[in-house]
C-alpha cells in the first residue's frame, strides 16, 4: 500500500510516532546502563526528528506543495525533451545560401516569385529585401514589413524606385542601427487585394523565408493606404503596426483617420500626410501617430517622424520605414515552447 504524502494516514502516523517517541524516551530515559548517554542522545534526536517531520507533513498537507513522493524525491517521469530547434528550413534556403557571401555584406534584394503568384493579380512581381543579419544569424526568424503601392508609382508618388540599388539603399538607410527586418514590396493592380496581405502573402512567406510568426508591419501608399490599416483588423495575430502614407498633396481621407483611431490598444498606426493638404482630422502636424503604445488609442504627434521632413513625397516612405523598424519585435530564434531541461531539486513555496 502506498501512503500518500498529503494524506491523513501519514499525518496520523507522524503524530502517533511522535507521541510514541516521547513516551518511549520517558520510559527508556533511566535505562540503558553503560550505554545510557548514547541511548538518551539517540532518543532525544529521534523525538526531534519525528516532531519536525510531522510538522513538515502537516504544513505540506495544508499548502499542498509536494503532492507526491515522486515530486519530493524528484523521481518524476523523465522531463519532456527540450524542443530542440534546428535552424528552420525554408524553400529559399538553398537559393539564398548561394548568395550568402554577398547578402551578409549588405543584404539582398530580389524578385520573389512564390507559388500561386499568378492568382494574386498583382501589377508586378513582388520584390524582397533580406537584411544582412539574415545571412549571419541563421537561426533567427525576422519580422516583416510589407509595403504596398500602386503600379508604376515612384518616389515622386511617395513609393519606391524599382531599381534594385535604389530600393535596397533606401531600406538600408532606414534600417540604420535599428532592428533588422525583411521588407516586401508589392505593386497592386487595384487597391482592394482581398486576403492577399492578411493571409496569402504571409503563408507564402512562412514557407519561403525565416519570418517571425507575429509582429509584422504594413505600409500602404496612396490608394493602398487604407489597405495597411485594414490588415490590422483582418490579421491582428500577424500584424501589429501600420503606416498610411499620402502619395502627393492630396492628403489622407478623414475616414482613414477615423479608422486609425479604432485600432486595438496593442497595435500602432502612423499616418503621414503633407501639412497643406492634411484634413482637419489630421490636425496641424505633418504626421500623426495613432494608437502609439505609450498613448493608447488617442491621436498623438510622433516625435521621430516629426523630425523628418515629409513635405516631399520621396521622404515619406523612408520615414515610414524608420518608424516601422522600431515597431517590430527583435529577430528571434524559434522559442522553446514547453518545459525544458532536467528538473533540479524542488523549491518549496508557500501557497494559498
Amino acid at each position: 500500500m502506498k501512503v500518500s504524502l498529503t494524506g491523513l494516514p501519514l499525518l496520523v502516523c507522524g503524530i502517533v510516532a511522535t507521541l510514541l517517541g516521547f513516551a518511549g524516551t520517558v520510559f527508556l530515559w533511566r535505562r540503558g546502563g553503560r550505554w545510557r548517554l548514547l541511548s538518551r542522545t539517540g532518543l532525544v534526536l529521534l523525538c526531534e526528528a519525528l516532531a519536525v517531520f510531522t510538522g513538515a507533513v502537516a504544513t505540506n498537507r495544508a499548502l499542498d506543495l509536494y503532492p507526491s513522493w515522486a515530486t519530493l524525491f524528484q523521481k518524476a517521469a523523465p522531463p519532456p525533451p527540450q524542443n530542440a530547434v534546428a535552424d528552420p528550413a525554408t524553400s529559399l534556403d538553398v537559393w539564398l545560401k548561394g548568395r550568402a557571401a554577398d547578402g551578409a555584406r549588405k543584404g539582398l534584394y530580389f524578385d520573389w516569385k512564390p507559388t500561386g503568384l499568378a492568382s494574386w493579380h498583382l501589377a508586378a512581381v513582388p520584390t524582397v529585401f533580406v537584411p544582412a543579419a539574415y545571412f549571419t544569424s541563421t537561426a533567427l526568424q525576422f519580422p516583416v514589413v510589407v509595403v504596398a503601392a500602386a503600379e508604376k508609382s515612384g518616389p515622386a508618388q511617395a513609393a519606391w524606385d524599382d531599381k534594385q540599388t535604389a530600393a535596397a539603399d533606401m531600406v538600408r538607410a532606414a534600417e540604420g542601427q535599428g532592428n533588422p527586418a525583411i521588407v516586401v514590396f508589392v505593386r497592386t493592380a487595384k487597391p482592394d487585394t482581398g486576403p492577399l496581405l492578411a493571409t496569402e502573402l504571409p503563408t507564402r512567406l512562412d514557407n519561403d523565408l525565416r519570418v517571425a510568426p507575429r509582429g509584422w508591419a504594413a505600409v500602404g501608399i496612396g490608394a493602398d493606404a487604407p489597405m495597411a490599416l485594414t490588415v490590422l483588423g483582418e490579421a491582428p495575430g500577424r500584424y501589429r503596426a501600420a503606416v498610411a502614407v499620402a502619395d502627393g498633396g492630396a492628403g489622407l481621407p478623414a475616414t482613414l483617420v477615423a479608422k486609425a483611431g479604432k485600432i486595438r490598444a496593442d497595435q500602432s498606426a502612423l499616418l503621414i500626410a503633407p501639412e497643406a493638404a492634411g484634413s482637419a482630422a489630421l490636425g496641424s502636424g505633418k504626421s500623426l501617430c495613432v494608437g502609439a503604445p505609450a498613448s493608447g488609442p488617442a491621436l498623438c504627434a510622433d516625435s521621430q517622424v516629426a523630425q523628418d521632413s515629409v513635405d516631399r513625397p520621396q521622404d515619406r516612405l523612408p520615414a515610414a520605414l524608420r518608424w516601422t523598424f522600431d515597431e517590430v519585435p527583435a529577430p528571434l530564434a524559434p522559442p522553446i515552447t514547453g518545459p525544458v531541461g532536467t528538473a533540479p531539486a524542488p523549491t518549496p513555496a508557500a501557497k494559498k
Partner: protein
Amino acid sequence: MRPNSLSALIFVLLLGVGAAVGLGWMWNRVRSWWGWFDRVVAVLLCAVLSLGAAGIAVNRELNLYTTWGQVLGQKDAAPAKGQTQTVIEGAGGSRVVEFNLAGRASGISLAAYAYLPPGYDAAKNQHTRYPVIEAVDGFPGSPNTWLVSLKAGQYLDNEIAAGRMAPTVVIFPTQVLDPTRDSECVNAVGGAQFDTYLTTDLQQAVEEQFRVRTDRMGWSLIGTSTGGFCAVNLAMRHFDRYAAAASLSGYFTAITDSTTGDLYKGNAHLRDENSPTWRVRNLPNPPLPLYIATAADDKQGVAQLKDFTGSVKPPISLTKVIVPQGGHTGAVWRILLPSAFDWLSGWMLAPQVDAQPGPVVAAPTHGPVTQRVEPCPVRPPAKPGAAAAPACVAAKR
C-alpha cells in the same frame, strides 16, 4: 555564515546534536534545587535548535533571509537614489544591480534589483533602449527567490545567448513592506498602494534610471505563485502599460486571509476588480497575450487555471502549459522559465536605438556587506591577454 548557507545548517545541526548529548549527560548530574530548571532549559534548547535547523533548511530553498539582520527584523539599506550596486556578474557579461525603487505616487520606497543584459554597458549601446520584463515573486518570497533560488539570471543569459530572447532588462521589485504580510500587489483600502507602486511608480523610476523602452509594447510581467496572480491582475488592470503577462502556478481570484489582512475592507466590488477571473467574465477582455502554466499535480493550481482559462475570450490570446508533475514548487518554475521568457520576448518590441542617449547606470558601488545578496568585489581592469576573471555570483555561501 549566512542564514541561507550550508555552513549555517551544519553548524546548527551540530549544536543540536551537542545539546542532545549534553541533555543526556547533565540529566542526573544536576541534583540541587535548580536541577529541574537546568533540565527544562536543556530540553527547550534542543527544541529550539531542531526548529532552527528546519528553518534554515527551508530558508536555503526560499532564500527569504540572506543576512542575520533580516532575521532579526532589520531592513537593509538600499543604495542611495540614482546609485546602483552590482550584486551578480553573469558569465556572459550581464549583471544584476540593486537600486532604490522610490515610488512617488504610492509613497513606497523599497530595494529592487535589475538584470542588465550582456552589452548593456557597451559604448555602442548607449543609445539603445531595452524592453523590460517585471518579475514578481510569490509569498512568502523576495527578489532573492528569483535571483538565488530560481537562478533567473542564468536562464536569461542562456536564452539571450541562444537568440530566443532579445536583450532585455528584467526588474525584480519587492512586493511586501513586511516579509510576513502579503500585499497581493493591490491597492489596499487605507493601506499600502502596491498596485500603483508596481505599475506607475516602477515604470517611472526604471525609465529614469535605466535605458529602457517607454512604450506599452516594451513592457511585460511575469510571476510565480502569488506573483503569478500579481502579473495577470496588474497586466489586465493596466493593459495600456503591458504587452503581455506570464503566470507560473498563479491563481486568478483575489484572496484575503491572515497573511494579507483585510485588503479590501469589505468592498466586494474592489475585490472583484482585482480578480482576473471576474474581470474576464464581467468586463471587456483586453487585447493581452497571457501565458498560464502550472503542474498537473498542483490540484489547486489546475482548478484555478481551468476556471480562468475557461472564461477567457478574444482578444486575449492564451497560451496554456501544464507540466505533468512538480507540485507547487520551484522545480516547475525552473523548467518553465526558459519558455516563458522566450514567449514574453516574442510579444515585446525589440531594443530601440534612440537618437538621444538614455540614462546611464551610475558606476557600480561596492559598499559594505549589508545587502540582501553579497556585492561583487571591485576588480582592476583586465590586462590584455590576461585570463578572464571568474564571474561573480550572488550570495556566496
